[in-house]
């Protein structure tokens, strides 16, 4: 019973294609994220949704569009893929807490390779 699951795990596609990665969490959390890990292993936030509302949108190209149909799902659609989009994309979730830090739980990652 995977807490944060994302599909596909591996994706190889050609430049210019459009692709989607799906994410679901069964932890009952109200906040979901997309993080990107580049070849140097740097994890960087892309988007965050709280109760289906976009709250963090870092400087990510418009070709990346997240969609949250409900608070348990956060999908990532990427248009016109470029070579530089090759990376591991991690979905994550947490429960927003007013007075303490929130622990973020990660999915297993989607390895995207653009050729």
């Amino acid at each position: 019973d995977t807490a944060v699951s994302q599909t596909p795990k591996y994706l190889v596609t050609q430049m210019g294609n459009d692709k989607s990665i799906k994410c679901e969490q069964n932890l009952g959390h109200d906040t979901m994220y997309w993080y990107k890990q580049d070849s140097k292993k740097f994890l960087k936030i892309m988007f965050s949704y709280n109760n289906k509302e976009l709250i963090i949108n870092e400087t990510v190209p418009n070709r990346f569009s997240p969609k949250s149909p409900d608070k348990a799902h956060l999908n990532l659609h990427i248009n016109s893929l470029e070579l530089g989009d090759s990376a591991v994309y991690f979905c994550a979730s947490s429960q927003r807490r007013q007075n303490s830090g929130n622990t973020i739980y990660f999915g297993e990652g989607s390895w995207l390779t653009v050729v």
Partner: protein
Amino acid sequence: EDKVVQSPLSLVVHEGDTVTLNCSYEVTNFRSLLWYKQEKKAPTFLFMLTSSGIEKKSGRLSSILDKKELFSILNITATQTGDSAIYLCAVGNAGGTSYGKLTFGQGTILTVHP
């Protein structure tokens, strides 16, 4: 912009050694500092620290935060080959639209030889 710097970037030790990993940070509105272990796949949560001087411990791993000097350390005693991984430090921001955002360091690659 929030910033997290980890050192060393990589470390090679033998089983049984003790290691100390360092994490220093700058964040506009500190909420928490987290340590994660990443093997081949997802980063897995180790510790969350919010208060200075209180050590968190889990088996052979322990961590402490110094909010005055803006750093944290992660100690691993009696290392085992299974400890080989990338250790990631991240700080959580409590401010406004950055609420919940984690800024990660570049990680420390730990290799433990038998």
